[in-house]
């Protein structure tokens, strides 16, 4: 019969292309921006927001901005005056550190950068030594370079330190010191010895309960009273101690969270193997606990780094403090917005990359089932 020849094999049937509204740009738009009428409203609202904010911002920051020149007269009043940043760049970066000695800071930056890059090279064999160098040798080198007074280096008093350099010094010292102190405090809080536990709890809760600003106030007005006659701490050292103790208390709580999350079996297994307390903590518990709380630790670091700006209240001129100072210069009144944007961008880059790195590390170290 002729009819049977009319039955077509499936493969003869030409595949229709998917509807244009389901794939490609149109499909993406339909699914992600306009699935329903109220989603469409939201999208339009979002677009309106973007329209409201973005073009004026770009116009201010780039199109009408002034990049060259050396005086405020060179600036277009309608746009950003990046000349302000250019003129004050040295102060924003190094404070009032003597110009002839800037190489010392830069040298320390370079050494630190090389060491950190080496740490990031996958499969680099002497990573441990680089780590030891960074934590033990480098601080000594940096101290000698920054403070001077040895090896024929001219002494530079800390009152001249400032800008991003000071922010990094306070942030780095706080970060490096707060973790070990925090771990000890957390172990103390989990200790079975009531006196040790009570001392640690009191210490942690005291620092966590008060704002950093009162800690800094205290370190600047009360430390001189605490010390015997004649002993005088540098202003920067006082601020550093304040920042350190404050962030150590926060760190302790983060680490405690990790310690509590370790199943009891791990402790019991370690004890059954006959490990001493410190071996049990150092080899079994802490490696697992710290790994578990990496996000919390990095968040504390980020918080600490942002909090370093508070030192300007006790008269240290950090990155932000330098902008405040430059903004009060009679020649440059009214340009603080540019300064704020610049500083904000600087902090944002540091904090955002730290948080992204912690996310990557978390994924890398995730050995869960």
């Amino acid at each position: 019969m002729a009819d049977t020849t009319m039955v077509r094999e499936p493969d003869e049937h030409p595949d229709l292309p998917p509807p244009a509204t389901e794939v490609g740009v149109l499909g993406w738009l339909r699914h992600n921006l306009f699935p329903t009428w109220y989603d469409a409203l939201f999208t339009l609202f979002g677009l309106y927001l973007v329209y409201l904010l973005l073009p004026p911002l770009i116009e201010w920051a780039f199109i009408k901005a002034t990049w060259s020149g050396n005086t405020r007269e060179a600036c277009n009043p309608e746009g950003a005056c990046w000349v302000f940043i250019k003129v004050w760049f040295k102060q924003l970066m190094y404070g009032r550190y003597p110009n002839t000695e800037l190489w010392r800071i830069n040298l320390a930056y370079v050494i630190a950068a090389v060491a950190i890059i080496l740490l990031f090279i996958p499969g680099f064999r002497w990573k441990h030594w680089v780590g030891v160098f960074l934590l033990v040798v480098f601080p000594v080198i940096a101290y000698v370079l920054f403070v001077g007074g040895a090896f024929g280096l001219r002494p530079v008093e800390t009152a001249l330190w400032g800008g991003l350099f000071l922010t990094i010094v306070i942030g780095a010292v706080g970060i490096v010191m707060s973790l070990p102190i925090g771990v000890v405090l957390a172990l103390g809080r989990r200790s079975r010895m009531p006196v040790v536990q009570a001392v640690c709890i009191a210490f942690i809760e005291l620092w966590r309960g008060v704002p950093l600003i009162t800690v800094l106030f205290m370190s600047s007005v009360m430390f001189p009273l605490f010390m015997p006659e004649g002993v005088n701490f540098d202003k920067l050292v006082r601020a550093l101690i304040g920042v350190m103790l404050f962030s150590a208390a926060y760190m302790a709580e983060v680490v405690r969270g990790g310690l509590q999350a370790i199943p009891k079996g791990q402790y019991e297994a370690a004890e059954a193997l006959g490990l001493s307390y410190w071996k049990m903590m150092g080899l079994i518990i802490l490696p697992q606990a710290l790994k578990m709380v990496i996000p919390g630790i990095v968040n504390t670091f980020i918080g600490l780094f942002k909090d370093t700006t508070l030192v300007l209240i006790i008269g240290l001129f950090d990155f932000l403090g330098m902008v405040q100072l430059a903004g009060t210069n009679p020649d440059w009144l009214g340009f603080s917005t540019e300064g704020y944007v610049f500083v904000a961008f600087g902090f944002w880059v540091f904090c955002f990359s730290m948080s992204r790195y912690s996310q990557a590390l978390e994924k890398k170290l995730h050995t869960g089932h």
Partner: protein
Amino acid sequence: MAVEDERGPVAAPARVAFWNDPRYRALFFQILVLGGVILFGAYIVNNTLDNLERRGIASGFGFLSKTAGFDIQLTLIEYNEESSYGMSFVVGLLNTLLVSGIGIFFATIIGFLIGIARLSRNWLISRLAAVYIEILRNIPLLLQIFFWYFAVLRALPSPRNAISVFDSMFLSIRGLATPRPIFEPGFGYIVIAFFVAVAAAIIVAVWAKRRRDETGQQFHTIYASIGLVVGLPLAAAVITGFPLSWDYPVLKGFNFRGGMILIPELVALALALSMYTAAFIAEIVRAGIMAVSHGQTEAAFSLGLRPGPTLRLVIIPQALRVIIPPLTSQYLNLMKNSSLAAAIAYPDIVLVFAGTTLMQTGQAVEIMAITMAIYLSISLLISAFMNWYNKKMALVER
């Protein structure tokens, strides 16, 4: 150590030397720690007393009743130059609580909105929320306060060219001028009606819950409560003839007269605090909602619940269990961060008390102790509440 020997009886456990006995060791360490703390404390107290004596500063809290002699820009209670230092402390504390309250209120609203927007399946909205969160939380709060105060509010027009909202609120370089409510006699009845309504709503809720437990009948407590809380005060207002009028700010000369002036420091601080904290709250809200597994939604649907009740009865209660503890600590952070007020001269407790009063009296130890004790006690109170709440809400497992 006891070693089992194949040849004979088990050796009796050897007597551990007392310096290897964990009990004695613990005792020793604790005595060491305690001794160290006491010695350190004594050293500091001794030095401090020495230094105070040398500087001729009398210690004690007597200074609190002396006349302060300085004025404060923003006071919620009666205060003038003749008031005591103690009063200046109260004024500062109230100002701290005021800005914290405003900050918490707006941070919660903005934070929940942004957090939900972050979860939206609308790509643009969720991207915008992500941009907001990533920008705001990675920039120091102090910088944001400076930005709002020096860059935005300083750029506002003078009172003559103020930006007006419905001709009743005026935003200018002198701050935000808003109408001030004037409570006429009889307003007390409305307040009483409000509290009666709240009490009645609670009673209705208890009754409704008991009836539901006994008979399974539902009662729309929420509508009854809204009706009571809105209706009763409204009725009282109608009966007493609306004993509330507004004092509008009017431009006279170079500034506004009348009304209520929110000083720019307060506006900047509240703005920065609430926008900064909102970024963190948004992340908390997002994490809380995502922590409720999708199986819960599916289970609720398969039980025949509709999307509304699913959200209200299944998702939100479970999400809140995750959200509330970190949310409270954000509130606490906001309260502590409000101390940054000192940087833009908003008269909070740190500026007024730990700043001006300390400079005038030189009583550093007492003033810092009081200031820190205040923050500490608020923190401890809230953490105590949190622990209680956590215990109450924790999953009861078999």
